[in-house]
């Protein structure tokens, strides 16, 4: 049970509060979903709940936050650790030890739980999160999804009453995300743990939520039953959009609810077919040619016999489970990793041999963590450096950035930008080189629905400029919106390769929400349906 009473919180050095005069109550044994646009104060609220703010961030707190009767003012995070487990957005930052088992035991060690109990609990939790086979692994060898599950396991073992999760599924493939959410549901049902999830991508998680807290702005916070709170926001998944547009009452929140209403819509759509994907029109030759490429790391094979050609104007979505080799393929195409077997060429050249201007005018990669690409202390300087590297007139990158997302304060540090702004910064830096091939690794992580819609528009524009785009993503909705072609990797091999519409609609794991609602009709997105029926 958490009560937040008339809380105003201001970060040090900030003029305006991150949250102002908000109050709420989180009931025990509920799954509460925390939603809101980036920058609305969602993360701050999450930090306030376990005392991370203000104890570790500094800042000024007015009002009180109470967790099971303990005031965070007098109880810093370490004294709340037996009540609250925290899973941060990037689990790598929270790992204290180097082995999976030790990591899971760490919080229990701090509480002085006897070794025998520790062993039992670790075994149980690893089982619950399907991590038993990995228990002796080093954390640095795990894939992103495995790391996320380890972080949840590590927070769970000490038996907290409340679990705070910051975007727990954003780095996971659809299958792994489903497993994690099912495990979370089991925690609330069987153990009575109160779960608070901050999340942008609501497609899957909405079905598991009992209540929603929407942070509309630092001054406005609405809490209540899911359907009630969601009625007033545009940050909703495709199925809710579809329901609203079709006027279904009550508006569906999950695919299952939507299907009950879908019969009529399906009938009206039966005679028309979704528009053929645009792009790749009249383009000849291949911008990227991957021929029987194999990559090994030590004894593990990351890629084997991958053959793939991408033509200019094509948007290829690369999907597959965590650890299936997507990131490795991207680093090979951009020349960071030389293939052990096979050949790879970008515009007829070996990318691993390209340097400087020759590289950035042909291929650019926006890494999974866009901040990795940003090296300067301010956005302004970042753009200036990029102009020099790309041999462009001063102001070129800044203009590109403004065309992607206007209004970024040029003097702010890249770290202080929102996820979407950071992504745009990295993309602007890459675009300054005017590459014919653009690679994006997991671009929608941390983006809310508005930012994602902007990204979709940007990607379509880039494809229309006849650039070849290859994006590795777990986000099936993004793939449904922009991809002309879909490649599924499994264990380093190409499992499927074909037009996005066909592969997406036919796969149970990768089907977008609209396709699930209207199955077996081949419609993928709300926009497609709207355009067909409004015409």
């Amino acid at each position, binding site marked *: 049970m958490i009560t937040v009473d008339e809380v105003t919180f201001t970060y040090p050095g900030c003029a305006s509060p991150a949250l102002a005069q908000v109050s709420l109550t989180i009931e025990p044994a509920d799954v509460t979903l925390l939603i809101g646009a980036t920058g609305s104060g969602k993360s701050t609220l999450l930090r306030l709940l*376990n005392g*991370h703010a203000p104890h*570790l961030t500094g800042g000024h707190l007015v009002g009180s936050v109470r967790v099971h009767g303990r005031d965070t003012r007098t109880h*810093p*995070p*370490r*004294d709340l*650790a*037996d009540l*609250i487990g*925290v899973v*941060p957005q990037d689990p790598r*930052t*929270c*790992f*204290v*030890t*180097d*082995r999976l*088992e*030790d990591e899971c*035991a*760490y*919080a*229990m*060690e*701090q*509480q*002085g*739980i*006897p*070794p025998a109990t*520790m062993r039992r609990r*670790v075994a149980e939790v690893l089982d619950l999160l399907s991590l038993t086979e990995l228990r*002796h*692994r*080093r954390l*640095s060898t795990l894939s992103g999804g495995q790391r996320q599950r380890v972080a949840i396991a*590590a*927070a769970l073992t*000490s038996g907290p009453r409340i679990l705070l999760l910051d975007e727990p599924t954003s780095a996971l493939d659809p299958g792994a995300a489903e497993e994690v959410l099912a495990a979370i549901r089991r925690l609330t049902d069987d153990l009575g743990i109160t779960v608070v999830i901050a999340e942008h991508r609501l497609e899957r998680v909405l079905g598991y939520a009992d209540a929603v807290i929407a942070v509309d702005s630092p001054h406005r916070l609405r809490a209540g039953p899911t359907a009630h709170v969601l009625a007033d926001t545009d940050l909703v998944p495709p199925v809710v959009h579809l329901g609203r547009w079709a006027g279904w009452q009550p508006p569906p929140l999950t695919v299952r609810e939507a299907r009950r209403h879908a019969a009529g819509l399906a009938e009206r759509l039966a005679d028309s077919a979704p528009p053929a994907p645009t792009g790749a029109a009249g383009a000849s030759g291949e911008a990227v040619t991957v021929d029987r490429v194999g990559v090994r790391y030590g004894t593990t094979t990351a890629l084997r016999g991958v053959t793939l050609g991408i033509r200019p104007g094509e948007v290829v979505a690369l999907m597959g489970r965590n650890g299936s080799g997507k990131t490795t393929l991207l*680093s090979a195409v*951009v020349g*960071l990793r030389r293939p052990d077997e096979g050949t790879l060429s970008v515009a007829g050249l070996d990318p691993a041999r390209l*340097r*400087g*201007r020759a*590289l*950035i005018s042909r291929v*650019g990669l926006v890494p999974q963590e866009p901040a*990795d*690409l940003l*090296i300067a202390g301010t956005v302004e300087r970042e753009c200036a*450096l*990029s102009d020099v590297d*790309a041999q462009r007139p001063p102001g070129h990158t800044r203009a590109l950035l403004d065309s992607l997302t206007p209004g970024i304060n040029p003097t702010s540090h890249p*770290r202080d930008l929102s996820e979407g702004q950071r992504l745009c910064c990295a993309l602007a*830096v*890459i675009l300054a*080189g005017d590459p014919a091939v653009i690679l994006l690794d997991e671009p929608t992580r941390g983006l809310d629905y508005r930012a994602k819609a902007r990204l979709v528009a940007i990607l379509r524009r880039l494809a229309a400029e006849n650039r070849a785009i290859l994006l590795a993503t777990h986000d099936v909705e993004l793939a449904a919106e922009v991809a002309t072609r879909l490649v599924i990797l499994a264990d380093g091999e190409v499992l499927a390769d074909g037009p996005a519409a066909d592969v997406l609609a036919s796969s149970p794991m990768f089907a977008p929400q609209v396709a699930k609602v209207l199955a077996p009709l081949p419609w993928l997105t709300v926009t497609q349906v709207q355009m067909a029926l409004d015409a």
Partner: protein
Amino acid sequence: MHPLAWWAWALILAALAIRSSTLPVLLALAAAAAIVVHHRAPPQGRATFTVFLRLGVVIVAIRLGLTIAFAPGFTGQVLADLPMLTLPLGDAALRIGGDLHLPAMLSALTDGVRIATIVVCVGAANALCEPTRLLRTAPAALYEAGVAVIVGLTFAPALAGDLGRVHAAQRLRGRPTRGIAAFGRTLVAALDGAMDRAIGLAGAMAARGYGRRPSAAHPAPHRAQTAALLTALIALALGAYGMTDVHVPASVSIGLIAGGAVLAGAVLGWAGRAQQRTRYRADPWRAPEWLVLGCALTASLLLLPVVGPTGDIATRLPWPIAGWLVLACAGLSAALPAWLTPAPPVAS
């Protein structure tokens, strides 16, 4: 392997390096450390170790460069006659360049190699067991201090990882990745990342209950405990200083260290009972750990009588050949853990 065994082994080698002033001894110690890392460190540990090796080479180069630039007043065989520049500095004069004497260069080389050997020894310990594992062995009463040290040490491997990522980013942006300017940029960006990581780690540890206040049933440490612990630490520090100062007899230093260790052990055991922390699968201290410690101690017993400020190992013993024999035995003893300890698990 118990992490403390590797750290004790490495620190003993480092202490020997500090006390010795002959190149063969220093090179033998560094080689022993490298051999053990080669055979017993996990792959990522070996990768971190190469960073330390490079750092060692840079240290030697800087030390030699300084001697060439500001040749101190040595006499003896002249190696090269460099052009000399004299800068008036108030009453004194700063001389740059000039005659380069062999003894000056030799002394600089030994100095540089000594520091490099110490760095390599610490690097070896770092490679053989990740610093985070040390965290689990710190005595309960010293937990807080231990964590501060470990967070500092975690910096190295994290920095190596960050350097790789920033290097890749520089290449993706088409920036030159070689040269001093590029290295400077990479280093600044990587340090920035490592700092963020350290702050993140502190937050994560707090969120998991690190540093919880003892409950009413387990009172805070007694004042007598704190005083005794301080005394023990001062004895240990004096002893450690004695090890590094060749003018202090080795027996005094060893006595201080041993006394300090016993006292510290007793106090920590006493204070540790009041802690509510427990250990999940504590690393056992068994035969291989004793062997590692024994190897390092054997090496130091062999070397301590023959190394010293006056240098040449051969002059300390009646026959030159005996000096080389002792050195060979000591080097071998220091490197033996490479074969005497169990291999690191392959699964990871």
